[in-house]
C-alpha cells in the first residue's frame, strides 16, 4: 500500500520536476555573461572564444541546449564547473553535508524548543505562559537571522570567547570542535525555525483539544497525561510534520545568509559564489538538486502522515 502510494506520488511529481528543470534552465540562461570569456579571460581572441563556445555547446539553439542538458541530468551528469573544471556533482556532494549538518542540528534544536513550548502554551491557553510562548514565537518569526547571528557572534565569540568566530569543522575530524563551531549558527537558525514551529503546534493542539474525542476522553476520567500523549499530541503532530518538511526542503538552499555570516562552505554559499562568477553549471546543478530535494521531502512527509495517523488512507481520498 505504502509503496504503491509512493510510486503514485513520484509519478505525479514528474511533471513538476520537469517544470523545475525548465525554470532552472531558463533562469540560468538569462543570467548575462559569456562563460567562454570567463574561461579564457577578457583578452581572448574571437576565434578562441568561438571554439570554446562550440565545445560547450553554447552556439546551438536554446531548445537543443536544454534537451542536451536534460539528457545529461537524467544520466546523473550535472556537467563541469566552468571555473574549477571539477564535476558539479562532486562540488555539490562536498557542500551538501555541511548544509545538512547545519539544517539537521538546527531543526533538532527548534523541535526541542517548539514541542514543549507549543504543547504547554496550548494546555495553558490564555494564561501568562501562553503569552510568553506566543511572544517567543513572534520573536522567532520577526528576527532577521543575519542580525541575530551577528549579535550572538559579538556576545559569545568576540566578548566571552566561548566559541570560534567563524569557519566549519567536520564532526568526523574533531567532534567537540565541530560542536563548538556549529553552536552559534545552529542557535541562530534554531531560534528562527522555532518561531513558526511553535505557532503551528500550538494552533494545531488547540484545534485537537476542542475535538469531541478529546472532550470525551477527558470526561471519561482518563489521566490528563495519557489524553495529551495519546489523543492530542499525536493528532496535532500531523500538520506539524508538514511544517518540518517544508522548512527542511526550504533550508537546503535557503540557509544562504547564515552560511555567509558564519563562513560555512554549504550549498547556499556555493550557489552565491556560482552566480557571482557566472559559473552557470554550478548554479543549475545546485538549484536543480535543491528543488528536487524539496519535492521528494514533501512526498516523504505525506507518507509519514499514515504512520502518525492510521486513519489517513494513503492515496484513497483521505481527509487531509
Amino acid at each position, binding site marked *: 500500500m505504502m509503496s504503491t502510494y509512493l510510486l503514485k506520488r513520484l509519478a505525479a511529481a514528474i511533471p513538476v520536476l520537469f517544470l523545475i528543470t525548465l525554470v532552472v534552465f531558463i533562469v540560468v540562461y538569462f543570467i548575462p555573461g559569456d562563460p567562454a570569456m570567463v574561461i579564457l579571460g577578457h583578452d581572448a581572441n574571437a576565434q578562441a572564444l568561438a571554439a570554446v563556445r562550440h565545445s560547450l555547446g553554447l552556439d546551438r539553439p536554446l531548445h537543443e541546449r536544454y534537451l542536451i542538458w536534460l539528457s545529461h541530468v537524467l544520466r546523473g551528469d550535472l556537467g563541469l564547473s566552468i571555473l574549477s573544471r571539477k564535476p558539479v556533482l562532486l562540488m555539490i556532494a562536498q557542500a551538501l553535508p555541511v548544509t545538512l549538518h547545519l539544517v539537521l542540528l538546527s531543526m533538532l534544536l527548534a523541535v526541542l524548543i517548539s514541542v514543549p513550548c507549543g504543547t504547554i502554551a496550548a494546555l495553558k491557553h490564555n494564561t501568562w505562559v501562553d503569552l510568553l510562548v506566543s511572544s517567543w514565537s513572534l520573536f522567532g518569526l520577526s528576527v*532577521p537571522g543575519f542580525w541575530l547571528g551577528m549579535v550572538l557572534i*559579538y556576545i559569545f565569540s568576540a566578548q566571552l570567547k566561548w566559541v570560534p568566530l567563524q569557519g566549519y569543522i567536520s564532526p568526523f575530524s574533531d567532534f567537540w570542535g565541530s560542536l563548538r563551531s556549529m553552536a552559534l549558527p545552529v542557535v541562530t537558525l534554531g531560534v528562527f525555525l522555532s518561531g513558526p514551529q511553535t505557532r503551528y503546534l500550538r494552533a494545531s493542539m488547540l484545534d485537537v483539544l476542542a475535538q469531541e474525542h478529546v472532550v470525551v476522553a477527558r470526561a471519561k476520567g482518563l489521566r490528563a497525561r495519557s489524553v495529551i500523549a495519546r489523543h492530542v499530541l499525536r493528532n496535532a503532530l500531523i500538520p506539524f510534520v508538514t511544517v518540518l518538511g517544508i522548512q527542511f526542503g526550504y533550508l*537546503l538552499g535557503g540557509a544562504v545568509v547564515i552560511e555567509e555570516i558564519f563562513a560555512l562552505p554549504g550549498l547556499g554559499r556555493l550557489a552565491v559564489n556560482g552566480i557571482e562568477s557566472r559559473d552557470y553549471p554550478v548554479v543549475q546543478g545546485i538549484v536543480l538538486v535543491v528543488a528536487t530535494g524539496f519535492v521528494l521531502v514533501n512526498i516523504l512527509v505525506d507518507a509519514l502522515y499514515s504512520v502518525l495517523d492510521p486513519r489517513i488512507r494513503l492515496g484513497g481520498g483521505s481527509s487531509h
Partner: protein
Amino acid sequence: METTVPRELLARPRASRLGLARAYQAVARWKTLSVGLALIALFLFCALAAGVISPYDPDAVVYPDALKPPSTAHLFGTDDHGRDILSRVIYGTRVSLVIATISVAIASLIGIPAGLISGYSGGWVDGIIGRVLDALFAFPVILMAIAIIAIFGSGERSAVIAIGLIAIPEFARVARGAMIAEKEREYVLAARALGASWARIVFRSILPNTFGPIMVLISLGFAFAILNETALSFLGLGAQPPTPSWGADLATGRRYLVQAPWYSFFPGLAIFLLVLALNLTGDGLRDLLDPRGRRR
C-alpha cells in the same frame, strides 16, 4: 465559546459618540493590531519626515567622528565614515518601505488574479496553474531571488523585481484557497444563474469577499519582503552604498562588529521592529477578520 454579552454592547451610546466609542472598543480589543499599526505608523512617519526629523545629513562624511559610540550628539553612534547612524536608520526606512511596497504590489497584481482565476476555473486551467505553482514553490525563495538579481544586475530595481516575483506563488496560493472557499456560496451561484460573466463574478462579486485573507496576506507579505530586501542588501545584491539601507549598513557594520557593535546593531533592530510590527498587524487582522479563531 464566549456566551456572555460584553457590557459595552448593552449600553447604548448616543449616535454622535457611537463612532468614537466603537473605535475605542476596537482598539482596546485588538491590542495586537493596535500595537502593530502604531509601530508601522511610526516607521511611515520616519520615512515621510526623514528630511525633517533626521539630526544629520545621512551622507555627510566626517572622518574625525568615525566609529564614535552612542552619545548625546549621536544617539546611535557613527559609522566608519563618521556618518550619523540614527540619520541613516531613519532614511533607510524609505528604501525598505519603497522596495517592499512595490514588490508586494507586483506579487499582488500577478499572484492574486492568477490564484482567483485558477480557483474559480478548476479543471485544466487550475491543473496547469497548480503545477506551475508547485514547481515554483520548490525553489528556496532567497536562492531564486539571487538568481533573478543575477539576470538584472545588483541594485534596488532588481531587488524589487526579484522579491515581487518570488512572492507570487504564495499570493496565488492564498487567493486560490480563498476563491475555492467562496465559489460555491449562494451569492456566487445566484450571480451565475443571472448570467453574469466570469470576470464580473470573480472580480466584482468574489474578490471583495476574499478581502480578509488577502489583507492578512499583504500584511505578512510586507514582512516577508522587508526580510528578503534586507537579506539581499546584506549580501550586497540590493541597495548599494552609499544609499542609506538597513541591510547594506548592517553588512558594512559587520566588518567593525568587534570594535563598533552599534554600527550593525541599530539597523538590525530597525529591521526586527518593522517586521515585528507587520507580523503583529497580520495577526491582529486575522483575529479581527476571523472571529472564530480570535481566542487562538
